[in-house]
């Protein structure tokens, strides 16, 4: 191997290390993909400072909840952008086999759709919750501890009806 090639390999390895996403971010792939899909469909960006809101939510969170990641979309114009018919199929594809479809609530009355996917994560349950209604959308990823899991298993529809933002304690 020539010196030039060795230098090239080192540069490649170093750039690989620098460009590789941090572990935490890699685990949020589904979250970001869903946020991007909503953003593209409604041509709307999520509320600003969601990083800060997530940070605050993680400190002011209800007991048993942690690792909250949050994206809220407001003022969605559903008259111009009717519901994405392929959204559920997209989500199923994006979350992959690791996440299991857990709860789905479709409430025609207020046009609200809630999808909850779950996967075991050590002693916790990792939940990915997506709520869409006529003018708002919310994507939440969080971990719940055993007490939280008990509440979710006890009454999944009721837990999913609580707004995801309130799960995060951001309101």
């Amino acid at each position, binding site marked *: 191997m020539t010196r030039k090639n060795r230098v090239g390999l080192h540069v490649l390895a170093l750039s690989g290390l620098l460009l590789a996403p941090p572990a935490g971010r890699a685990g949020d792939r589904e979250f970001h993909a869903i946020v991007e899909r909503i953003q593209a469909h409604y041509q709307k960006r999520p509320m600003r400072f969601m990083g800060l809101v997530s940070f605050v939510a993680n400190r002011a969170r209800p007991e048993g909840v942690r690792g909250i990641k949050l994206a809220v979309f407001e003022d969605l114009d559903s008259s111009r952008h009717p519901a994405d018919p392929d959204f559920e199929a997209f989500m199923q594809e994006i979350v992959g086999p690791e996440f*299991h479809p857990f709860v789905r609530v*479709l409430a025609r009355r207020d046009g609200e759709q809630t999808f909850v996917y779950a996967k075991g994560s050590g002693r916790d349950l990792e939940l990915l919750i997506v709520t869409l209604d006529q003018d708002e959308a919310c994507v939440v990823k969080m971990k719940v501890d055993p007490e939280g899991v008990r509440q979710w*298993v006890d*009454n999944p529809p009721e837990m999913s009806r609580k707004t995801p933002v309130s799960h995060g304690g951001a309101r």
Partner: protein
Amino acid sequence: MKTPTQVVRLIATLLLACCASIPAFGQNPRLQIKNLDKLSKKASEVVDVTLDESMLKLASRFMADEKDEDDAEAREIIKDLKGVYVKSFEFEKEGEYSEEDVEAIRSQLAAPGWTRVVGVRSKHDGDNAEVYLMTDSNTRNILGMAIIAADSESLTVVNLVGPIDIAKLSALEGKMGIPRMGLDKEKGKPSQKQAASHDEKK
């Protein structure tokens, strides 16, 4: 050194042992409830709850420390289950779903192995509740359960897959999206009130 005949006998014995430990051919306690999805367009609210084996294992692990008697019983039931599937519809007005829609589920419950153990139909308030059990034709073990709960403006189908202690079934009422049916805590039978409404039909 085993002769070829001994090897064949050994394989045959192993195959027989395997066959004896699995449910009889065609006995699948998992219901196809997807065909109810067409009701989603008419329903004012649709709730789907899916707890597969891995989720149930996780849940039972988390519920291991439960002091509450009902929760402890619920944990005992779900730790052996392979799946809990609940589909529930609420309608704005009567007549949004038909008897044929329910029949699509009942026809699956007419398959060998399924037996109706509770059937409550009230002419007075239109509340219907049916509980079916699938038992292994060889071992008589319970393989699964189905519940159809319906009134004029709602329909709920519950499918539990896996072994269930029927005596403890009441502990699952009101949990995991399973409707409250007033099952007798001791025997998993309808309560006095339901028994009365059953008589009412007669």
